[in-house]
């Protein structure tokens, strides 16, 4: 595996809710992302995956912990180098409706980064807009239109072009296909894969179920209630899941994708995930875990490498 591009060390992001409560959206996560790979990040809504994504790109400031990009600690940069690093890390947003300003023309949306960094002006700017539109499978005349004239899939392409404009090396894609029709999802995933090939991009691809990230991810991380439950290479995770939560997620993949599901029994999880304001003591998953033991309530399981490159946090493996 290649060298590390992003090193995440015990990152926490807490929000204040009212006077005395904190929402522990992300609560101590460590992992790394390697140059050129796609790391899939899976979790239910409320698991903190979007918050983690936004913290990694710098939209949110981490409450605790370090994010090291290309050897540089993001929290310790001066303004100038921060701006440069910012350019290299971009984001593709979830809602293609909300992520494009309805009052701006598509060309100006795509050129937003070019303008902010004063990269291109006049005809060079125009040229670059056309080039980017074509890269994402749209045509030059689309530049003069407004976002509402496009379909969801096309809008997501516009969002991708906007991120590409500043030539990033690392892109966080926050559920880029969840809001799209199933028939269009594959197109967007393929586009992302092609662009990765062409520009040597690294992705953190956030999704809410395993089936969605399987095709594109080299490795997959599973999040639950602000913490990472398991992290392994995709094949390994599907073939030999360790954590009870991962097993449950895998068993929930519909039978229409038998190759992914294997011959596993469906594990039904009871109840809803607990609130991140008052997470359970010990293991966050213990309230729904079919294998929960006494120790699970008392001690938080350690994040450990159980096998080569296969991490999990569970007392069953300890």
């Amino acid at each position: 595996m290649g060298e590390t591009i992003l090193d995440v060390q015990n990152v926490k992001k807490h929000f204040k809710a009212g006077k005395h409560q904190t929402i522990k959206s992300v609560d101590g996560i460590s992992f790394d992302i390697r140059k050129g790979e796609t790391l899939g990040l899976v979790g239910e809504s409320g698991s903190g995956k979007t918050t983690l994504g936004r913290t990694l790109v710098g939209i949110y400031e981490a409450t605790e912990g370090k994010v090291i990009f290309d050897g540089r600690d993001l929290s310790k940069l001066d303004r100038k180098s921060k701006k440069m690093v910012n350019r290299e890390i971009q984001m593709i947003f979830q809602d293609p409706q909300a992520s494009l300003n309805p009052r701006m023309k598509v060309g100006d949306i795509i050129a937003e980064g070019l303008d902010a960094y004063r990269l291109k002006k006049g005809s060079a700017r125009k040229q670059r807009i056309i080039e980017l539109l074509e890269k994402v499978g749209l045509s030059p005349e689309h530049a003069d239109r407004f976002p509402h004239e496009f379909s969801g899939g096309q809008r997501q392409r516009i969002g991708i072009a906007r991120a590409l404009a500043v030539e990033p090396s690392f892109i966080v894609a926050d559920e880029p296909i969840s809001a799209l029709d199933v028939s269009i999802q594959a197109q967007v995933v393929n586009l992302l894969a092609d662009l990765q090939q062409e520009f040597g991009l690294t992705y953190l691809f956030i999704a809410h179920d395993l089936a969605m990230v399987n095709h594109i991810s080299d490795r997959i991380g599973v999040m639950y209630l602000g913490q990472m439950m398991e992290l392994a290479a995709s094949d390994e995770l599907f073939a030999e899941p360790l954590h009870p939560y991962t097993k449950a997620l895998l068993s929930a993949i519909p039978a229409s994708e038998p190759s992914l599901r294997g011959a596993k029994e469906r594990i039904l999880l009871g109840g809803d995930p607990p609130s991140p304001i008052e997470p359970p003591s010990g293991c966050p998953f213990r309230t729904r875990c079919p294998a929960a033991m006494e120790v699970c309530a008392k001690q938080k399981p350690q994040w450990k490498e159980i096998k080569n490159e296969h991490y999990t946090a569970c007392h069953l493996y300890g």
Partner: protein
Amino acid sequence: MPEVNDSMFKPVDRSRLRIRTKSRPVMGYWHEVALKLAKNKLALTGFFLLLIILTLSIIGPHLLPFTPSHQSLTEGNLKPSAKHWFGTDDLGRDIWVRVWTGARISLLIGIIAAIIDLIMGVLVGGISGYMAGRSRAGDRIDGFLMRIVEILYGIPYLLVVILLMVVMKPGLTTMILALSITGWVGMARIVRGQILQLKQQEYVMAAEKLGTSHFKIISKHLLPNMMGIIIVNLTFTIPQAIFSESFLSFLGLGVQAPTASWGTMANDSLGVVLSGQWWRLFFPALMISLTMFAFNAFGDGLQDALDPRSEK
């Protein structure tokens, strides 16, 4: 229930499955708003009424050969006629001329109220909303501004005018001063709320992520997306200010006689309406009502037209 079987299903005609691509002429947002507005009869009526009132407030007084303070005791209390279109009052002053001079005061108050709203309201609300949640200092600025707004919000305009009269004479200046103290808080709240909401939009996050400057985020992303709400709010605060002026002048707390204002004219007429001189009250009251109606009808229509979800 009838049984469902295979024979009931037919393959869909392939040609109907074509992906719908929207291809209509490129149209700006405001262009679309104007089109929607043009189809709303009530709003259109309001708009043209406003135009007429505005025009007549400019040229109206010049259409008859009198000045608003021109008295002629021999021509007192005349009914509307070819010489005095709206009749005269007890001092023989022409009511048509006075009504349209009074309209100038009303519109002036309306315009000033709008300017105060735009400058103070948008500025305070904008700073507050933009700073909120940005940093600890930002939160403090937001908290401080909103505390002021809350305090002012609780003080009625009428009370401020009366309090100001302790130190000032009643008149246009007093009313304008009172308006600048309290008139903008509603706008400030609305703008702040809008900004807080817009800041959560992913396109604003994307802009920040791309390194767009604060100035551009405000001018390109926030303001254009709030314009509608700001304008709609104006179409409600302007008539409110106009009505307050008339009302205060009517009570004798606003513009003072002999200056013509719809309120003072209505007040003057109180004693004589019952003795049959209906035109003395009718025309100023009609103008107040028409102006209120025109603004509200137009404002309502505008609100609908600005809502992107409403179809043409």
